[in-house]
């Protein structure tokens, strides 16, 4: 039976019911099937001046790939996306579409934007099912390039360089490749085997070598890679993993986690599964502090592990930096939000265990440097929330390992590596950087885009050396 399309509305996508998914780690959104995707594709106006493309940080030819879907030429659609993106199955799932491609979609001026992300995801998943993967280049250059970090930025840069024929090795500190895609973003949003592992296999299929358990700056420095191991260039994509804390009383209490620790235990170490050894504190009542994607992921992970969860965020709903879909899903699943509220102290019992959190109400004042209205405390409005677990999701900065062990590598006030936006070039000849380690915590698509640009930058640099 053909699907009836309301041109004003997105073709609905099937999801696991909230009551059900609140207790499992399976993917929440089930994605379009072929029929649904082709129906949604008919909503695209194939605009002459497609705003959506401007909204996409890597300028995917969106009307182009959607037109292919409409024709039923899925392989063609995959090729069109592949010209601009190497992680469509990931970006289709985790991009903040509402502020990027879909946010400016012309169809969205009246009614709802085209479901660009879901269509991208559909195309990538379709290709995966068909076993389509990129081919290794036939011509190999005998030139070595090292990539530090196997997150989206490093994987993309490595993949692109390999396609150009370079001999690429990725060095990854953890025991598994993927960066935030494996340790941060949970299974229920981004399946690890089905999606992430496959994307990594694709990069390997291009001839890229990945050395895990290898910490650059400790096992070996960048200078050693270039001088002793004969790498012609290095791309640093080490992310921004170092979590921030609030520096309020009680933060050392038992049961206070950074979101990264909580998520790493759950995702990378699979603490939620009985057959894995890493422990995790479940908690009966959990308070998550913060309002970004990281906070939503921590909250929804705690919920699935069996806790009641409250998110405490100091601005209002409008300013929540998380993807709209995640906030919506979190609410559906029963997570409470205490907005315009900020912690002032974590309360502990006589054994040092968390027993609550004291918070204060906020109101929005004048806009700050970021243009958002700055929250200010309302005097005398403090109150306590009972809880036995507190997860801090306040943001992260690049860790000092690489900058601290590489001479003359310029960093800025925020400890980010200074890199040219177009080429990734740093203050050191032959050393390039991009993704979160250069920009501070950002998004998958921006990290990926930076990897792409750096691959070109490295190629030009090496050609100039020859």
């Amino acid at each position, binding site marked *: 039976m053909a699907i009836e399309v309301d041109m004003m509305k997105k073709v609905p996508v099937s999801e696991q019911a909230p009551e059900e998914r609140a207790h499992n780690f399976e993917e929440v959104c089930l994605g379009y099937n072929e029929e649904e995707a082709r129906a949604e594709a008919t909503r695209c106006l194939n605009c002459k001046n497609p705003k959506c493309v401007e909204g996409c940080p890597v300028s995917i030819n969106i009307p182009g790939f959607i037109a292919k879907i409409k024709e039923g030429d899925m392989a063609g659609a995959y090729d069109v996306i592949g010209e601009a993106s190497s992680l469509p199955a990931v970006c289709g799932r985790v991009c903040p579409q509402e502020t990027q491609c879909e946010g400016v979609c012309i169809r969205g001026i009246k009614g709802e934007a085209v479901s660009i992300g879901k269509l991208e995801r559909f195309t990538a998943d379709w290709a995966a099912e068909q076993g389509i993967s990129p081919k290794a280049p036939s011509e190999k250059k005998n030139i070595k390039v090292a990539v530090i970090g196997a997150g989206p930025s490093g994987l993309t840069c490595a993949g692109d360089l390999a396609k150009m024929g370079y001999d690429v090795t990725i060095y990854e*500190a953890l*025991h598994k490749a993927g960066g935030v895609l494996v340790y941060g973003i949970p299974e229920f949003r981004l399946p690890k085997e089905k999606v992430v592992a496959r994307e990594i296999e694709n990069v390997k299929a291009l001839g890229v070598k990945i050395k895990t358990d*290898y910490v650059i700056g400790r*096992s*070996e420095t960048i200078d050693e890679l270039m001088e002793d191991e004969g790498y012609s260039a290095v791309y640093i994509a080490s992310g921004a993993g170092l979590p921030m804390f609030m520096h309020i009383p009680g933060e050392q209490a038992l049961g206070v986690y*950074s979101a990264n620790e909580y998520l790493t235990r759950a995702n990378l170490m699979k603490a939620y599964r*009985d057959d894995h*050894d890493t422990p995790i504190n479940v908690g009966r009542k959990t308070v998550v502090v913060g309002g970004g994607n990281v906070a939503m992921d921590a909250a929804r992970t705690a919920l699935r592990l069996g806790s009641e969860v409250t998110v405490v965020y100091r601005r209002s709903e409008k300013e929540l930096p998380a993807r709209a879909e995640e906030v919506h899903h979190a609410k559906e699943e029963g997570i409470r939000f205490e907005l315009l509220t900020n912690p002032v102290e974590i309360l502990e019992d006589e054994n040092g265990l968390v027993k609550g959190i004291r918070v204060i109400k906020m109101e929005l004042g004048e806009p700050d440097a970021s243009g958002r209205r700055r929250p200010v405390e309302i005097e005398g409005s403090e109150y306590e929330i009972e809880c036995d677990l507190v997860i801090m999701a306040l943001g992260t900065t690049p*860790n000092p*390992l690489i900058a601290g062990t590489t001479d003359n590598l310029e960093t800025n006030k925020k400890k980010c590596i200074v890199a040219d936006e177009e080429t990734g070039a740093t203050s050191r000849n032959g050393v390039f950087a991009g993704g979160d380690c250069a920009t501070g915590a950002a998004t998958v698509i921006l990290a990926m885009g930076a990897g792409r640009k750096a691959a070109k930058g490295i190629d030009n640099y090496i050609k100039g050396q020859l």
Partner: protein
Amino acid sequence: MFEIKKKELLAEKTYLMVVKAPNVARSCEPGQFLIVRAYEESERIALTICDYDRKEETVTIVFQTIGESSFKISELEEGESFCDVVGPLGNPAEYVNEPIEEVKKRHYLLVAGGLGTAPVYPQAKWLKEHGVDVDVIIGTKSKDTLIMEQEMYDAVGEDHVFVTTDDGSYKRHGMVTAVIEDLVKNEGRKYDKCVSIGPMIMMKFCVKLTKELGIPTIVSMNPIMVDGTGMCGACRVIVGDEVKFACVDGPEFDGFLVDFDSAMKRMKLYQTEEGRRMLAYTEGKCKGHDKG
């Protein structure tokens, strides 16, 4: 990869292993640690590098079976391999990167408590090899729990090693702090720098004393760790009112500035839950480990 070349039982529940780990052996220095995983489903466990052989590309670890994970490691045999070994992690001891002429001007006192003897050993050895004066105190519960005594004699000379037992079953009797007082107050020895490694409570009291005696003291912190690369914050310790991450800022810190009380409190985190898992494992209820 990461093959176990040698395994030895040093004392009850205390094992030494020599492990093939080229990337670690190539660049590690005293004071650094590594992280191991026994199997694909295992925890990441931090262990100090207790010795290394750059030519053989091996490192030595010494560990006690405390909970489930260390117990599983202890079940691995010579010829078997770890699933992962990553390192070296953390910063080398501070003297490693200081001008050696400066270091040689100092007289070092190394204080080892229990299992801490193992991580003190490479430090003693390094200092001696670089011509630095060093005395070592080894404190342990009793004669049975004493480890690496001979190795320490070989490294710095028997005259420079002072062994003490809590129960008086061997050599001196009493805590390490009593020996420090003895050496400094009664025997008139002078030290310019102390390095203290052992149980948190021992380091705390050691620092209390060396502060009185005016001997700057370095301690090695072993908080709970997950990644060991500065990404999770589990290992945070308070040093001079600042939050520091032991895995990237440490593990060695100025003992006078460390907040031991909050650090000891945080160590309790997994006690109960891990206890339950340990029971489940020894009773054979733990699923998913293909150990053959």
